[in-house]
């Protein structure tokens, strides 16, 4: 079948799926959110996508990027956040690090708090029908703070860095379709060579000064989204030659530069004065990150006494307090962040499926959500796909069934009950609370869970080894992303030692389907298998919270805590 080329009103090519999904949307088969999310990923501008959606829905939505009226310029935004090492953006493994760098270096794309990905340093992009070739048009007229022009060389240099195993960037996993396996030269214990991944020859092409093209060896829809993943900030092409340290040599395209920086203490970004910023000038003169330690209460107390204007993340315990503070605003963002009680399939007694099912059957998801998270989220269904994921398929709701759990337990040979040790990390109080609530629920079926609460540092040394642990997973825009990361045989993050060929086959099928509706249908099987195998008992998807003082305007909480302060200004 000959390929039909679609163009938009401006004559620009659009991906063939765009008209299709537009049609589905018009017919009500696809949610507004799914529609916006997908078409923007496929290169349709957010403005056009919103306009189309507005037309269909007959509403006038405000463009979320530009809604500031009466914004005042100037001021210092003081944000309570851990201040960490920020020397190399490619190896960032913690969001606060990227936030420190966000004002200095920028990304190719930008995903808003509405889960919509928009152009940033890339002006536009398009993918071929198979989603294996992606062309990015770079914005022109962007200048580095050292006066150089931003061009394709910068982008290619960054890809080279990310996909060079010696750099150690986690981007290598996100852009795995651009890599090839190679022999690292080291030997495994069994004598087989240790294989690594590195950039495939010809995976990236410099089309012209402002165009690059990526060649993938398998279809990936999330490339534009991945380009906003926190380690994907674009650094100058001479980054490595000039020391490879952003903190010491803060060259970037962003509107700010680094004025003060002390790990564990503070990080101050000030408006750059060495040349005009390519985009609209941000309102804030300075962004000042203040490290108040791991203690949430200190941050709240600081907010209460006006020492900070913004808190990076609020834990659930403090939201009552913040709601009561006269000068504070609580911001909530629903996410696909979760924690799973995961059972390691290769360790007794969890090698017994009935036992795992019994454990899962005792869980009252709603109650844990209410108790441990004040109901601020949605219940999860033991399959690690969230309702906000576009491919989410709604299975029949899970109900707690203590009798069934007892029966399963008896089948598993533990008619008199069983005693289990659960490792829990105490970094987040809600996890400890959830563990305690679950413990009481399981006790009703004769499952005695002993909680082994430990500091995060300790937990993260055993998280992928302990037979029974409560592990947090962060937000990812697509459900299959986590499933691929954590539930395939032998992948490094497969903390539950899960191995089910049937599941993997179903997941392969689902991952290869572009059609949202089709993919969703195929997810039914994926989700059901996971639920049935009961390797995780997953109570909830949580909202995340940040807080600002009342003088902070134009702020929206981001589900992954990425700071987008371009639209933020301060009153008074």
């Amino acid at each position, binding site marked *: 079948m000959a390929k039909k080329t679609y163009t938009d009103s401006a004559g620009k090519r659009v991906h063939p799926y765009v008209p299709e999904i537009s049609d589905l949307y018009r017919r009500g088969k696809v949610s507004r959110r799914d529609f916006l999310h997908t078409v923007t990923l496929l290169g349709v501008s957010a403005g056009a996508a919103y306009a189309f959606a507005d037309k269909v829905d007959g509403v006038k939505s405000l463009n979320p990027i530009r809604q500031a009226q009466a914004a005042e310029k100037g001021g210092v935004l003081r944000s309570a956040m851990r201040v960490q090492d920020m020397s190399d953006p490619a190896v960032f493994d913690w969001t606060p690090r990227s936030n420190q760098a966000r004002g200095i270096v920028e990304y190719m794309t930008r995903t808003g708090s509405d889960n919509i990905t928009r152009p940033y340093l890339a002006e536009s992009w398009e993918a071929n029908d198979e989603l294996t070739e992606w062309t990015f048009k770079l914005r022109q007229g962007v200048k580095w703070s050292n006066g150089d022009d931003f061009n394709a060389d910068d982008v290619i240099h960054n890809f080279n860095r990310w996909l060079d195993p010696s750099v150690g960037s986690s981007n290598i996993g996100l852009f795995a379709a651009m890599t090839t396996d190679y022999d690292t030269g080291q030997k495994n214990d069994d004598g087989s060579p240790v294989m690594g991944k590195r950039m495939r020859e010809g995976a990236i092409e410099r089309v012209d000064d402002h165009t690059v093209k990526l060649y993938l060896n398998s279809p990936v829809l999330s490339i534009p989204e991945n380009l906003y993943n926190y380690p994907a900030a674009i650094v100058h092409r001479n980054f490595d030659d000039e020391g490879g340290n952003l903190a010491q040599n803060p060259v970037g395209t962003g509107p700010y530069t680094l004025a003060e920086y002390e*790990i564990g203490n503070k990080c101050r970004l000030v408006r750059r004065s060495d040349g005009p910023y390519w985009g609209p000038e941000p309102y804030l003169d300075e962004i*000042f990150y203040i490290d*108040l330690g*791991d203690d949430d209460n200190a941050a709240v*107390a600081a907010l209460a*006494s006006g*020492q900070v204007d913004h808190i990076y993340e609020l834990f659930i315990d403090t939201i009552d307090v913040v709601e009561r503070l006269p000068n504070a605003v609580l911001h909530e963002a629903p996410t696909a962040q979760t924690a799973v009680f995961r059972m390691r399939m290769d360790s007794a007694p969890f090698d017994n499926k009935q036992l795992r099912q019994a454990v899962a059957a005792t869980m009252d998801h709603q109650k844990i959500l209410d108790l441990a998270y004040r109901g601020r989220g949605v219940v999860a269904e033991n399959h690690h796909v969230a309702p906000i994921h576009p491919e989410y398929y709604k299975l029949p709701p899970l109900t707690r069934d203590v009798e069934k759990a007892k029966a399963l337990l008896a089948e598993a040979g533990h008619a008199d009950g069983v005693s289990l040790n659960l490792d829990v990390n105490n970094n987040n109080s809600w996890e400890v609370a959830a563990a305690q609530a679950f413990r009481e629920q399981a006790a009703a079926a004769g499952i005695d869970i002993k909680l082994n609460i430990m500091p995060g540092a300790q937990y993260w040394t055993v998280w992928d080894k302990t037979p029974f642990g409560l592990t947090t997973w962060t937000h990812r825009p697509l459900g299959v992303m986590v499933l691929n990361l954590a539930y395939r045989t032998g992948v490094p993050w497969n903390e539950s030692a899960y191995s089910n060929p049937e599941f993997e086959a179903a997941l392969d099928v689902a991952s290869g389907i572009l059609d949202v509706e089709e993919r969703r249908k195929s997810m039914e099987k994926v989700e059901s298998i996971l639920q049935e195998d009961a390797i995780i008992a997953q109570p909830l998807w949580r909202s995340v919270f940040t807080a600002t003082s009342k003088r902070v305007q134009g702020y929206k909480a981001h589900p992954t805590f990425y700071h987008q302060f371009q639209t933020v200004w301060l009153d008074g």
Partner: protein
Amino acid sequence: MLVFLARRTVQMLLVMIGVSILLFLLLEIDIDNLAIKVLGPYSLPEARELWLTENGYRDSIVVRYFRWVGGVMVGDFGQSVIYRVPVSDVLWPRLANTALLGGLVLALVIPLALFFGVLAGMREGALRDRVISVSCILTTSVPEYASAPLLTVIFVFWLDLLPGTSNMVGGFQWQAMVLPVMVLVLYDFGYVARMTRASMAEVMTTHYIRTAVLKGLPYRVVILKHALRNALIAPFTVIMLQLNWLLSGVIITEFFFSYKGFGALLLEASLNGDIFVIEACAIISVVVAVGSQLLSDLGYAALNPRIRIH
């Protein structure tokens, strides 16, 4: 005197050697764990092995110990895992902050405790003594982590008088010192005051005080010239040893108020497995503690003429 000083210094060094061995054994005997702590939980076993070999951790434990001690002696504590900078870069500023906090606390505790202790001990069993003693027991019974939230509720949320944290990133703020200092003073004051009281009360029953009174000296002179110096000998040692307790209390208080001090650093390091920082903090705190003991010995000798000639 010099002999005494030299002997105490040698003893102090011996203790330091013991402490360093203890710490080293506690924290660095399990080098695989050390590698995980340093390189992170996601690091590959090969990388850990490489790191261990490259950094000499496969050498014998004795060699490693001396290498480590050698580093510590010249102020090289290694590289912080969380801060990614040499430990000393983080440690010294933090220590300076704690010194400020501790200095303020001592500056308040010493005069207050001595004053009230002497006042109470002057007339043992009198109402004044009872009120002071019971108040001291009361404040000593409320640990820092109980008084800190209570005082925060009162002064930060209700009265809105003081800032709730003392991070001082925006520069020094005296207001931010008030709560941490208050919390530590409350807890520490009672102990020193009661020691002073006990010492004073004991001195007041001695025969030489009777001699002084029956010599016809005015009461004021008896107290100031005869009782006080002798009564202060015991509290002096207590005050210097108090530094040790202060360093303990500082961990909780700094944690509570996000004060960027040495105690918060140690706690954070230990929660995050930043072993070299833990080692450095522990060593430094012991140096401070043992050093204060030396000072206390010297002070004791200065106050107590009987010690001098021995």
